[in-house]
């Protein structure tokens, strides 16, 4: 039994690996995958919604009572027909469910598999601000990343639950005390974006936001150098006192 389970797990994970999202040389970008899948789902649910809406409008119009004592003539289903009317729609709904599950799973794998070359930044959430740690004691309260370099944020909280949300990169994950969670993204164009807290954390929850700056390499180096300067200045203040 155990061996069988093992094989199934192997086979499943093999399938996951084989999915095209992980093929060599593919530039991974979950945010683009998100936009793509979102469009497909909007089409899917719009089609379902329109079919059922039209059917409802049509029937409410068509089957108005002509006289006061008219009664409905809805079909009395035979057992076979009743079963068919249950199984056929159920199969159609299930087909759509599995179709969406498969697509959702593929994208989810992309979301969770961190690229090897990703730059790691550690995040700590406090009531009510964020702290980003670039390593070597270099910390800032805004997030600055290099264009084209995937970033993984390893996150924890010093007090209550928070949630790190960057709409531009379509990522969000709760940040909590006692655990480390992560998100990764691929910043492909320069600009300034919003990062904000989306897990209710008290009075200033709505003010717990900061900027994500995606910059060119040179500007990034400059930013890191400034952080180093600050750190050095802070250290010398500390050693003097």
């Amino acid at each position, binding site marked *: 039994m155990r061996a069988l389970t093992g094989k199934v797990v192997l086979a499943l994970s093999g399938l996951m690996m084989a999915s095209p999202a992980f093929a060599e040389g593919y530039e991974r970008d979950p945010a683009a995958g998100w936009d793509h899948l979102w469009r497909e789902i909007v089409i899917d649910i719009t089609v379902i919604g329109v079919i059922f*809406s039209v059917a409802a409008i049509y029937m409410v119009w068509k*089957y108005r009572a002509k006289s006061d004592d008219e009664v409905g003539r809805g079909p009395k289903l035979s057992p076979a027909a009743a079963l068919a009317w249950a199984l056929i729609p159920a199969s159609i*709904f299930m087909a759509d469910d*599995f179709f969406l599950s498969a*697509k959702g799973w593929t994208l989810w794998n992309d979301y969770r598999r961190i690229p090897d070359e990703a730059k790691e930044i550690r995040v700590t959430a406090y009531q009510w601000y964020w702290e980003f740690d670039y390593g070597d004691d270099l910390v800032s309260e805004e997030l600055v990343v290099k264009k084209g370099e995937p970033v993984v944020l390893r996150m924890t909280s010093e007090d209550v639950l928070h949630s790190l949300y960057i709409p531009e990169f379509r990522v969000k*994950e709760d940040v909590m*005390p006692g655990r480390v969670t992560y998100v990764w993204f691929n910043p492909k164009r320069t600009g300034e974006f919003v990062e904000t807290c989306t897990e*209710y954390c008290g009075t*200033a929850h709505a003010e717990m936001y900061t900027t994500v700056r995606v910059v060119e390499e040179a500007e990034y180096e400059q930013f890191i150098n400034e952080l180093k300067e600050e750190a050095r200045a802070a250290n010398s203040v500390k050693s003097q006192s």
Partner: protein
Amino acid sequence: MTMQTFKEWFFTTDHKRIGIMYLVGSMAAFVVAGLMALLIRLEQSSLGPTITDNPNDYNNWLYFHGAAMVLAFLIPGLTGFFANYFLPLMIGAQDVAFPRINAFSIWLFYGAIILALLSFVIPDPPDVMWTGYPPYSITTTGNTAFYVFTVHLLGFSSVLGAVNFLVTVIYMRAPGMGWNQLNIFTWTTVAAFVLQLVFIPVLASAVTMLLFDKYLGTNFFNPEAGGDVLLYQNLFWFYSHPAVYVIFLPACGILFEIFATMCKNRVFNYKACVYGGIWGIVGISGFVWVHHLYVSGMPDWLRIGQMVTTLLISVPVGLMVMSMWGTLYRAAITFNTGMLYAISCLFLVLSGGLTGIPLALTAITVHLSETSFVHAHFHFIMAMFSAFAMFAGIYYWFPKMFGRYADGPAATLGFWLNIIGVHVTFIPLFIIGVEGMPRRYWDYQMFPQFEPYHQVALVGAFMVAGGMAVTILNWIYSAFKGKVAVENPWKSCSMEWTHAPNCPQAGNFPNPPSVQPEWSPYGYEDREGNMAATTDPGYPTGPTAKPAE
């Protein structure tokens, strides 16, 4: 009100009076929570402080709004009022199995409402949202105990109700009434109470642990002392996802009754609806809670597994939808205000249910979770679909309860203000939700571009407020002064209409009914034959409902 009538109501054990008291209590909760909603929308209608500069005020309103709407309006309205008043009538019972326990339940409910209202006058009201997540709910200076005790009282009341109604349906059906002769409303209520019975204890234990952690120094949820922050969320949603069906199922049940009657039609594919749809939902309901925790740090395999189970909910829900739509097929439809609300629910369930599908996909929810998209999704299904189903039911059964009609121009005006208003409020929230607008935000300095959408939402909220004011005043006026109704005005075949006179007295039925195997609550096609398959009601019931000689 004389002392005598006051005593009669205060000490009543009659399921119908208890039902009316649930109606009054839950509508009172709805009005107060609705006023909070107006404050919330006002505050968000402009950037920066609008009507308060203290975010805590906003958080307190939001707490009250959410907790009261779910726990004190929707659940008690549906399982308290509707089940109490109509379920015994539908199954031909003279009361519930344990009338005194029933009376105890209503007083627990009123205790909870008073406790909830007290939170407006205590110095540090609860500010933990209706979800109450620790560690915040433990570290806040807000009075979390009020939240916990309110949940305890309502939960206790519901569990007692569940036992009571399950026993009633099992043992007190009219002689001869088989399981496949039950109204769909009865089935949905039974299912809702099974869910309450199974899952409420989980919620009760979760909030009790909060209480212990906050006030007695235990560490259930404190990771520094070996506790687990996520435990609470798992327990909370293990109850609270099924709780959405405690609301959704009876709401559907009400609609089925109205459609069958106003369409003069049998319910399409009854057995698929009951055994596939209703019980399918109950079966799956305990395996999908993680879809509320898609971004909460759950293990990846659990997020994927429950993505599949969540999507599969569409199968039983789909079967119920097929039956509901099917009931319109080859129908003979007549219209009244109840039917108008019921028809609007056909569309609300589509917008509310179908927007659940993107949310079911873990990878899509990483963007949408905790945004106003989720907010709009569950308002479409709860604040609109479920509440409108309740309003439909109130109009439909109004002649039964008060012997008078509530239909009329005021009712129609209220309907149109409500239905237009809710769309004006929530469509903008869908749009900005996809753009990233977080929910539970006192202010949104980081997203100034969303301000116009919040202003539109404000206009919608005031339309609904106007619509509800008209509606509620119309109910109060009609209950005392409305046009007197004939017996069985909508010519239903269901037992609460055919065998109990308007404003039924204690004991409900002049002639306690019993039924033959060929009787059905939806036997319109051969109405005379159907009436012949049950006892003579024992009072004149108007031309159409008269039993065959």
